[in-house]
Each structure stands twice: as C-alpha cells, then as structure tokens.
C-alpha cells in the first residue's frame, strides 16, 4: 500500500478539546496519528502533527480537516516529500525570530521543503527584554543526508522573514 505523510499545523484560539477534534477528524477520514507537538503560544493554541494515510485517502483527510475551520480551528497541511530516509547527519538548529501566528508551521514547512527531517522541535515564546515584543525561539534537531549542504537549511529558513536568525549549533 502506498502511504502518504502529511504535516499538519494547527492553529486556534485556545479552547478545550482542540486535540480531540483534530484527532477525530484525522482518524475518521482514514488517517493515522504519528507524532505531535502542541503548545499555547501568545494566547493561541498551536500544534504540529505528523500523520500518515493511504495515498487515496489524502483528499478525504484534507476535506475533513478543512471542515474544522467552522469551529475556529485552522489546519495547514503539507505533504512531506521526503522519501524513506537514509541514515544521515544530525543538525542542531537554533532559531530566533519575532513571534507571529503560524511561525511553527512556516519553519516546519521550510525544513520539509528541503527534505530535512525534524526529529525534535522545542519552541518557546517570551516577552523580550526592553522592547517586550514577543520573541520566538526554537531548538530543532533535524536529520539530513550525509552529503547535505547544511547552509541550505539556514538559507531556506532565513528566507521566511528578515528578523529570523538561524544558528547551527555545533
């Protein structure tokens, strides 16, 4: 069976039962919940979920998730293009940027678009010293093929916005 991997970015006003609603929408349309990482950021609920489903169910899953917007839950969907991943190198990334809704999705999509596999993602948002603007910080461990040019990660992420800064941590 040919299966597809989808990355969902979930965003909503914080309310009870978000995870429940999203997971029901996934399962009921034939998807399988693999991994997720959720948190409340700047008063919004944000989460990333990776799911798997048979190729022919992709449309169903997408439709089912789109319906959630009626309940104020927005879901962005990305199809992972990466093939079965060969053993690669682990890269630790540290990202600093202004916080904005959807930033996690932007970051995860950007990484996915160059075939970088996110193994762990830890994000934090806090009020910055002095200006008190909201600052987004993420620690990411990602896996890329052994011959991968690491500067591509910096380039693709820094294209997202001028304030976003990437450090590759040794």
């Amino acid at each position, binding site marked *: 069976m040919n299966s597809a991997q989808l990355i969902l970015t979930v965003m909503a006003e914080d309310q009870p039962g978000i995870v429940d609603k999203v997971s029901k929408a996934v399962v009921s349309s034939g998807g399988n919940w693999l991994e997720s990482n959720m948190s409340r950021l700047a008063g919004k609920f944000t989460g990333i979920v990776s799911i798997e489903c048979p190729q022919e169910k992709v449309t169903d899953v997408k439709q089912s998730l789109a319906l959630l917007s009626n309940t104020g839950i927005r879901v962005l969907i990305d199809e992972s293009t990466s093939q079965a991943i060969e053993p690669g190198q682990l890269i630790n990334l540290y990202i600093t940027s*202004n916080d904005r809704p959807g930033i996690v999705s932007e970051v995860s999509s950007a990484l996915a678009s160059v075939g970088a596999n996110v193994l762990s993602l830890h994000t934090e948002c806090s009020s910055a010293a*002095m200006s008190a603007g909201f600052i987004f910080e993420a620690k990411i461990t990602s896996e890329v093929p052994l011959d991968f040019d690491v500067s591509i990660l910096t380039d693709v992420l820094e294209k997202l916005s001028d*304030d976003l800064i990437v450090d590759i941590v040794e």
Partner: protein
Amino acid sequence: MSKPSLSELLNSDEFTQRHIGPNESEQAEMLEHIHFKSLDELSNEILPSDIQFSNDLEITAPNTEADALKELKAIASKNKVFKSYIGMGYHETTVPNVILRNVLENPGWYTAYTPYQPEIAQGRLEALLNYQQMVIDLTGMEMANASLLDEATAAAEAMAMAKRVVKKNKSEVFFVDSSCLPQTIDVVKTRASAFGFEVVVDKAENVADYDIFGALFQYPNMDGSVLNIKELIEKTHSLNAIAAVATDLLALTLLEAPGTFGADIVLGSAQRFGVPMGYGGPHAAFFATRDQFKRAIPGRIIGVSIDSRGKQALRMALQTREQHIRREKANSNICTAQVLLANMAVFYAIYHGPKGLSRIAQRVNRYTSLLAEVLTTHGVKLSTESYFDTLTFQVENTANVISRAEANGYNLRVDSSGTLGLSCHEKTSLHDVKNLASIILGFEVEADFTALDANLTASIPEELTRKTEFLTHSVFNSHHSETEMLRYLRKLESRDLALNHSMISLGSCTMKLNATAEMIPVTWPEFGEIHPFAPQEQVLGYKELLVDLDTKLRAITGFDAISLQPNSGAQGEYAGLLAISKYHESRGEGHRNICLIPQSAHGTNPASAQMASMKVVVTKCDDQGNVDINDLKTKAEQAGENLSCLMITYPSTHGVYESGIKQICNIVHEHGGQVYMDGANLNAQVGLTRPADIGADVSHMNLHKTFAIPHGGGGPGMGPIGVKSHLAPFLSSHPVIPVDNVPNDNGAVSAAPYGSASILPISWMYIHMLGYSGLKKSTQVALLNANYLALRLKGHFPILYSGPKGLVAHECIIDLRPLKAETGITEVDIAKRLMDYGFHAPTMSFPVAGTFMVEPTESEPKSEIDRFADAMIAIRQEIEAIRKGELDSKDNPLTNAPHTMTDIIEGDWKRSYSRELAAFPTKEVKAFKFWPFVNRIDDVYGDRNLICTCPTMEAYEE
C-alpha cells in the same frame, strides 16, 4: 524669626536640594509612610551590615552652581585652543547655531532614552532614519545602522562581522592597510587578539599576498592619498574575502562611493558633520553594508513599519540580532550608542543639504590644493599625488616647523619618521593657508591665490571622482532657511517624551536629573575645540579634570586605578574582561576562560564575555531573584582551574542588595577567579558601600547613569572601569597618546585615549556640586523614593523581590503576569496605556519577562511619584473592570492604547468607553497632555518587510 547664620545664608548645599526631588518635609512624610525615622536608619536597614561603609570621605564639600562653574572655568582655561590641522579622524567643524541651541543644548533631545517605546519617540526615530539614509547615500551601500561608538570600534565590528558572513573561507587572518589611522589599527588588533584572529598590517596594494577572511582600507588614507579602492576591493574579493572601507563623509561628497566599487562594509566617523572634537568624543560612527548581510550587522537599525491604523510608523528593527535578546550569540555587545551625536550629524546634513556639503568639501579641498601648490612651487615634495584634505611631506627641520606652528597657534602632526602632515577642514580660511605655507617654508609667503586658483589641477583622480547622486530625498533639500530648520527640529522634538515632560522610571537605566549647570561646560570651546592628540601642554585643563575625576571615582568605589577610556558600560565590560584575561595569562593561567553569569544578568554581560572569547556558563537564581549560591559553588567547582571570572550586578538586577554578596565573591576567589561587578547600579552604592570593599576586582561605572551624563536618546555615555592594583597593569593603552601608568602594548578599546572626554565635565560638576554629603544623600533618597513607590503600589500589584526585611533597593519589579493570566491584558498594553497618562513605561521584561522594573531615582519629587503611582493604580482599576466584564475584553482603553489625536477626533466614536477616558484619564493630563504621534506599532510587520531608508515625503503626510 531667629537670625540665620552666615553659612545658612550662603546655602552651599543649594544644589543638593535642587538635585533631590523630595524636600526635607516630604522626605519625612515618605519615611513615615514606610515606617522609618531617618534616611540613615533606612539605608542601615536595607544594606547588609557586612558591606556598609561608614567612613565619611573627604572628597569634596558641596558647592553652589555658580562656584562650581567658576572653578571648572578656571580649569578649562588651562586648555589652549589651537587651530587643529592634526586630522587623523578628528576635524574642526562649525556646529550650526540652530543645532547647537536646539539639539545639543536642549533637554528635549538630550534627556530622552533609547527609543524602546516608539510611539512616543517618533521624532528621534525619524532623525535616525534620516541618518541611515544619509549614510546609505554617501557610502553607496544598501543599509546602515544608527550609530556605533567611534570609527575604530566600527572597524573592529567590521572585522567581527566579516568573519560571521564570509562563507567557505576558513582563514583566521584579517588584513589592515598600514595607512589606516593608528588608533583604528590598534583597536582592531585588540579585538582580534581576543577573538584569536591574526592581523596583518601591510601596504594596501599587497592585500592579495595573504590568505585572509577580510581586509580594511582607508579612503582617503592616513597619508592623505586617495587610493584606487576599486582595485583593492576586487583583489580582496578574488580571495573570497570581505572588503571593508573606512572613510570620511565629507570626502565622499567628492569621491565616488565605496559601494559603487563593490565594498561590503563601509564605516567611519560622522564627527566632522557638526560635532565638536571634544578631546576625543562623543561622536557617532557610521556603519553600512549590503542588504544580504542585514542579520549580521551590529548596532541599532531603525526601520519603517505601520501602526494599528495602518499609518507609517518607525521603530527599532531586527532586534533579534541584539544583545538583550541574543545574549552571547549577539552580533555585538553594543547598548548605549551615540544617538544624540548621530542626530546632530544628520541635522548638519539637512541644514546644509547636498549642495552645501559639496561646497564645504570643495572649499576644503581647494584650500588644500592651494597650499599644496605653494609648497611644491617652493620645492616641498608631497608624499602623495592625490589627496582630499590631507597633505604629508618631509621638511629639513621638522622641529623648527612644529615650533613655528605652535608659536602661531597651529597644530600640525608629525609621525615617528619625522613626516609632517596636516588636514584642512571646514574652518580653514585663505588666511590660514597663507599662514601655514609661511610656517612650513619658514618665510613670509606672498602668493596671488586668485591666479593660482585659476590654474589648479584636480587632486582627486578622475576615476574616483563622485558621479553618483546623494541626499536627493526631500528632507535634505527643504530645511535650508533657519526658520524651516528651527521648526523641523521642534516638530520632531514634540513627538518625543523626555525627562522635561515627566518621570521616566526605567529600572537599571537611572534617568536622574541632568542639571543645566552640569551641561553648560560641555559647549565651552575650551573643552569642545580640543583635538584628542593635541600636544600635552595644551591640555593641562583636561589633565587636571581627568586626575580630579580619577581621584574622586577611586575614593567613591575603593578601587586603586581607573581607566577613563571605555565609551559605554558595555565597552567597560569588554575592557574589564580583557584585563582579567591578561592578568590570568600573566600568571601562566591563560587557560582560564569560563565566565559565570547569573541568569538575571543584563544582555551586555554575556555578549561582552563572548567578545573576550570567554565561555559563558549561566548560573541559576533562587526564588528571591538572588544568585543561587549552591549552584554558583557547583559551577565554580566544575569550572575549576578554567574559571576566569564571575560577572555580577550589585545591587542585583532585581533591585535587591543580596546579603550573600561577600560569600559569592569569596567563592569565586577561592577557585582562582576574578569578580567583575557590573556597575549599572552603582547609584545605589555611592556613599553607602563600595564595590572594591565588597570584593569586586573590577567594575564599570556608567557615568550616564550614576553620574548624571544624559542618555541623549540612546547615547552618549561613558563606562570607565575601576580595578584593584593587581589588574592595573592590564588597563587599555593608546597608540598615539600614552596613558599614564599603562604599558603601551596593552591595546586600546576606543579610538580616543580618554573616550568621550568632553562629557566628563558633566560628572565633574555633579560630584562637585553635591559634595560627598550630597552624593550620599542622593543614594539614600533613591532608596527612599523606590521604597515609597513600592509601598504605594504594593496593594495593587505584586512586588516581585525584596530583601529579607521586605525592602527593595533603588528599584523594584512589578509582576504583571498574574493579571495577564487572568485577564489577557499584557505588559505591553499597560506600557502603552501609561502613555495616555503622560508617562514613559518602566523597563519592560528585564530581568524578568512579563514585568515592569521601576526606578524613580532621587531626582523625582514626591508629587511626581504619586502621580505615577496614581496612574498605575487607575490602570489597575481599568483592568479590574475588564476582569469583571464592565469593560469589553477586546475593546477597552488598554488594548487600544495609546490613543492618538486621530482616534479622538474620529467623527463616529464606536468604542465601549468614552473619549475622555481614552485621552484625558486624569485632570493632570487635561492640564498638560502629551499626544503619542502614532498608534500602537506593529513590529512583526516591519521586520517582515524591512525598510531602513526614508519613505517619500508624501508617505509621512498620510
């Protein structure tokens, strides 16, 4: 009425009463409010007993303003103002009077703080944006920052930045053109050695002989020559290295922009654009680069964004690069910069316009050419074929020329090989040209200058002559009458909230009074018109001032030696850490490179440690905000023989005198480390305790906090460091002017030997007017004001930290997180709402996210503190109304704050609260309203769509 004594009538501590806000009876009332009988009782109670300093220092008695000014005038008059032809990055210039009086001498400009609250800082933000545009135009680059400390440190920043951006080039070598200014070379070398880079200094044309990651050239160079930088840049690029060019804004009006030739970084000093030489400073340095390197650029960048009405609004952009957010990963440690001076420079450009600037530059160049012509006619051989304003040449008897020059009131320069040099400037006249020719040639020169002028040939090579336009934006072309200039300055000033409007209770920043009498000497020519490299016998007044200040600062801090070179607190940190590293190295312990820094430290601490190539290890704080001593012990042990130092702020950044401070210092010393004390809070120590007695080995003093130098809207500043004797041999030296008792090869951290010397008279006046008794009393009243304010707010907001007896030091933290959790109202909402009440917000989210740190300082009167407390309490009640549902959670005076005039005149007012509550919440505000010029600014928008140049005039008018 009893007859007052003569000494009472003399009232020599008059200034103490004016500097300190609350009068005696108010102090008594406030003391009673917090249950104390006297200031001494209060300070004895707050300070840990084992650090209290009980001696009375006989440093000086109080003096009246008139007496202190008279004494300082006598000192100043020992300086001799010669005509300066020394050049080397410092030139005579005429400060346009309209700028002198309305900017440099105007508290509306000099008492503002760094524009962290942009809605009430649009004036200086616009000025700084203009400054960036000016730099971008003249250098031909794509983006510029809003100022660094001086040209030499800008060059060092260029080197550090080159290393950050150069890709796939593993070299650790930086090339410096040997004809760069000597102070630039020295500062770059100091910085390089800390980073472990090698610096090669060689003739520019040899750049391709080395494997390098970057190169620095000077255009025009130290000899005066205008090198073909196009070729040099191309050679550098062929090595896959970054090309940096140090240059001169006035010269660039005639020389083609380095950007046109492909330079990667262009930097220099903006001093000769209408900022006095001031024996070395303060002046702004400029720094420009390519758009692609925007993330790597050091320093503040002003950018264009929009407010909540979609109107264009300015604010600091890309703060994600900076030390307060990125800490040890920051591009640089720069905090206090040179905003006031950058603004003066751009106002000079606006005042003269592109044509006026070109005229000045052409005149300077013409006089130089005439002089060159006369000299060469009489057989003098110039060292260079091309020049802008500088000639260098050999003469038979250098000493004779120099003594003739001095006899006639001129300063020339002479290098170690006996080569003479001179640089013409804005003030040079034909008369000077004649005098200089006669001085150099040794006889009275007669020349027909009109005839000579007609036959002059160009001194700037055709291929380097300016062809690209500059300063075409209308702002540089529409304020050429004094009336327009005056009104433009006033317009911008009116958009900014400064200390002359209301209290700016920024914790850690210490916005105390900058008294007029302290400011007056700054613009005396005896201080302003002195070149930093003037002969020693002409600067006896400055010497006396420096020695006196050194003596006083040593007595106040208990240290054995002082370095007056650092230009900011952050630069003091860097200089202090370098001294610590050198000390360890001198004892064969160069491996000591771990710097312990408590969680609560200011961002400059880790950023400076990184610049000194130290490894930062963060130590924890306990629930009281104090250093967690057990964690510190563990980390010091783990660091073991690699422990270099601890950086600690005292009283802590939380506003508490930690009682364990002596133990903390001991732990570090036991493990062979040194204690660096961040002196940002020295204003809570003066007269009550001393950093050296507590256990610090080195500490900086922010003279722009504790000793009354104004913040200038984000600089200038001075951050001298005090050290114990074992560190004294490692203080900063200077390559041109030897610093007393310091080995010459230590290296400089600033371009000038005594930093921004011309603002030192401010601190001198402050100390001499207050006298020791007034200094001590100022500290005590700072404690009183803070504790009074804390108590007034206590029932309404939680006060985060206090000492064991429930008292705070000179500042306190108000915790806003519980309110946010309960009502969704954020610290930003409250900060913006304070603007409607006519106040600048306290320090936000430092050292604890989601809080305010409030520091009223001793200078605020009781009435103002009450007014602030009342505003905070009223805002608290508004939040309460939101909590109870009486005010809408989305449409309320907080989330919509600040309110502008545009809001209020809106025909159709649809909000759930009244216009009156929006803009005139108290009767004081009705009587004296400050209108924020824009609504709340959207930071995220501006950083996504980064624009750092001036929008069209129409956009401003929208």
